[in-house]
């Protein structure tokens, strides 16, 4: 029954994603327009979540900020999967050889660094901005997917259907693509969801220290950073971006948990 967490998880994620998509067509207010006379408006009928220290509508900022968060996390996970999965398959196919060693020790090397610190270093060296944040977060997704793929693929290599494929004369490349990959897709989807939520957090963290998307592009992390000295004056400035991050990360984690249980064949039998 645990897989039922898919429903609340997916709903939360759906809300955030649709708010982000909607912001391309419509936001309650323009996020680029400042209205300093109406700063710190409390949440109400006109500004549902109030206005910030420069008079911008917080709801509109959150909607546009969701775009940045989702885009950064999504592309970063894409980089991780796009590079990590082929590396993992290759390592499994050449199991116990120097290729395997090289790939896996390289992954250990990246894995050994605290990811957020290195992300900060990368953006500090190459300059702050959304693109560098994507690259920085993406690099640290590579070993996660490479390890996962290698482990799962390695156990599949000893199975009869793989043996049959080999007898039929298929090469390692075709076996990996046609037989192994479809069998580990479930795992990758689950891990991808979890990495996606970590990516959202990492983006918020980088923006918080000023290394993510640069102003005036709204970003959840920077909204939090800017609200620090204003928290006793206008708590909504910190509350709503914080809630947005919590909601998204919670939704993705619930979704990931639910998907894992749902896609797991052992759990399926119990149903």
């Amino acid at each position, binding site marked *: 029954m645990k897989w039922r967490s898919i429903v609340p998880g997916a709903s939360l994620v759906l809300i955030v994603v649709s708010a982000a998509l909607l912001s391309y067509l419509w936001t309650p207010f323009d996020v*680029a*327009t*400042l209205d*300093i006379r109406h*700063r710190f408006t409390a949440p109400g009928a006109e500004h549902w979540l109030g206005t910030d*220290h*420069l*008079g911008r509508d917080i709801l509109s900022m959150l909607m546009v900020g969701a775009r940045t968060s989702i885009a950064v996390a999504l592309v970063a996970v894409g980089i991780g999967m796009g590079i990590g999965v082929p590396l993992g398959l290759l390592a499994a196919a050449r199991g116990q050889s120097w290729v395997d060693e090289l790939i896996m020790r390289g992954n250990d090397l990246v894995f050994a660094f605290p990811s957020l610190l290195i992300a900060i270093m990368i953006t500090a060296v190459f*300059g*702050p901005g959304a693109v560098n944040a994507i690259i920085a977060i993406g690099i640290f997704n590579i070993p996660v997917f490479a390890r996962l793929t290698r482990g799962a693929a390695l156990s599949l290599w000893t199975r009869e259907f793989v043996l049959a494929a080999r007898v039929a004369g298929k090469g390692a490349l075709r076996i990996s693509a046609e037989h192994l990959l479809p069998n580990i897709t479930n795992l990758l989807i689950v891990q991808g969801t979890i990495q996606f939520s970590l990516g959202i957090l990492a983006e918020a963290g980088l923006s918080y220290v*000023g290394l993510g998307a*640069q*102003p*005036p592009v709204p970003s959840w992390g920077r909204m939090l950073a800017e609200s*620090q*000295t*204003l928290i*006793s*004056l206008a708590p909504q400035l910190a509350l709503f971006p914080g809630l947005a991050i919590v909601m998204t990360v919670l939704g993705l984690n619930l979704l990931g948990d639910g998907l894992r249980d749902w896609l797991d064949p052992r759990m399926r039998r119990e149903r």
Partner: protein
Amino acid sequence: MNYRYCNPTLLLLMCVAGSALAARTDITVGMVLEPPNLDPTGGAAAAIDEVVYANIFEGLTRFGPDGSVRPALADGWEIEDEGVRYVFSLHPDVTFHDGSDFTADDVKFSIDRAMAEGSTNAQKGLFANIDNVEIINPEKVAINLKQADGNLLFNLAWGDAVMLDEASAGDAATNPIGTGPFRFDKWVQGDRIEMVRYDDYWGKPVKLDKAVFKFISEPTAAYSAILAGDVDAFPNYPAPENLAQLDADPRFSVVLGSTEGETILAMNNAVPPLDDIRVRQAVAHAINRDEIIDGAMYGYGTPIGTHFAPHNPAYLDLTSKNAHDPDAARALLKEAGHETGLSLSLKLPPPAYARRGGEIIAAQLRDVGIATEIENLEWAQWLEQVFKAKDFNLTIVSHTEPMDIGIYANPDYYFQYDNPELQALMTDFGSETDPEKRTGMLQQAQQMIADDHVNGFLFQLAKTGVAASKLKGLWENSPTQANDLTAVYWDE
């Protein structure tokens, strides 16, 4: 039984009464930036003077809280030979913190050291007109000038002209030994500097016996430190948004004063498209100062129309020359051939006036068709990229040195304004002694830089000081970079 019970209670009561009567004699002062070293004669950082000026080091003259020049280590002086020779009588019985006597030798040493070829003094210009220092006797010293100069007493009051002892001057960066009322005690790098009262001080004894300067760069941390009582005063409080709240709190007093900080939107005059005066003028007209002062500084600041402090008698109000006029800005951009819009980099250092002001200016520029690419920089990066490498279009910064209009006569300065006419004017200004003519020249210079729209002139930074309400005697204004604690006491 009764007696035994009573005795400790009485003792306790006496203790409580005793401690309530004695006022506190220590202070912790909050500062945003930590000084890189403690030798005011060997570094440009304002934070050095903000710790040591008047507290540890003193000069022949000094600035008072109102900016006036007052006698310090020199009791008095006589001006001879039509203004080219100043004879100073030194205060007797002055000692350095290591016990050695302060005499005419130290004056000659300090000024010769500042003037020397390899000197690292950040304000060598202050001494440029000095020909030599002549020791008459241990308590009398003469300074001979190259030409008459009405500025000598003002120049000698700067932190860059304080008196050091030959024996200890070499270590002043880490172990400053001066003649002031406080003696350097210890420096915990990254956290605080402590000083204690110097009991053999020659002047009026100070009421505090210990002073700590604590460095807190985060506005949020500054706010909590003030609220928690971890610091007793924050003379330049970094988060103007909290001032109204702190002012309403009876535990604190907020004191607003003036500073020498002209806050400008600096433009790179040597690089297209800002080498075109029409584009610079368009930027100037796009700026709405009131919105910036309100939005970034919560109303604390005075609009300026040129690079000059409004509280200076020579100030001209030129804000109408570059008033907010978006239509004029658009017309100028069209005339300059930028109808389709243009994009400029805007590099912002950490202070709130720059970060928040930058977002507001970006919105105002967008309104007239100028896109900006904002980049938030740390101070070290800003100094490297903007100040040294001049790799920027626009930046926002506050120039806090007093009377610094002379930077416009330096074509190598980071905004790269090269106007021979102004350069000649400032050279003449240096040798002019007639006060009225000097005022006229300063006003002419203000006009020139406003007419050329060298930079976007935003506002004069306000000094927003926060202190415990029982703390008295801190400076209200900032006529120079200093946190003079000599008159500070707790009123309890």
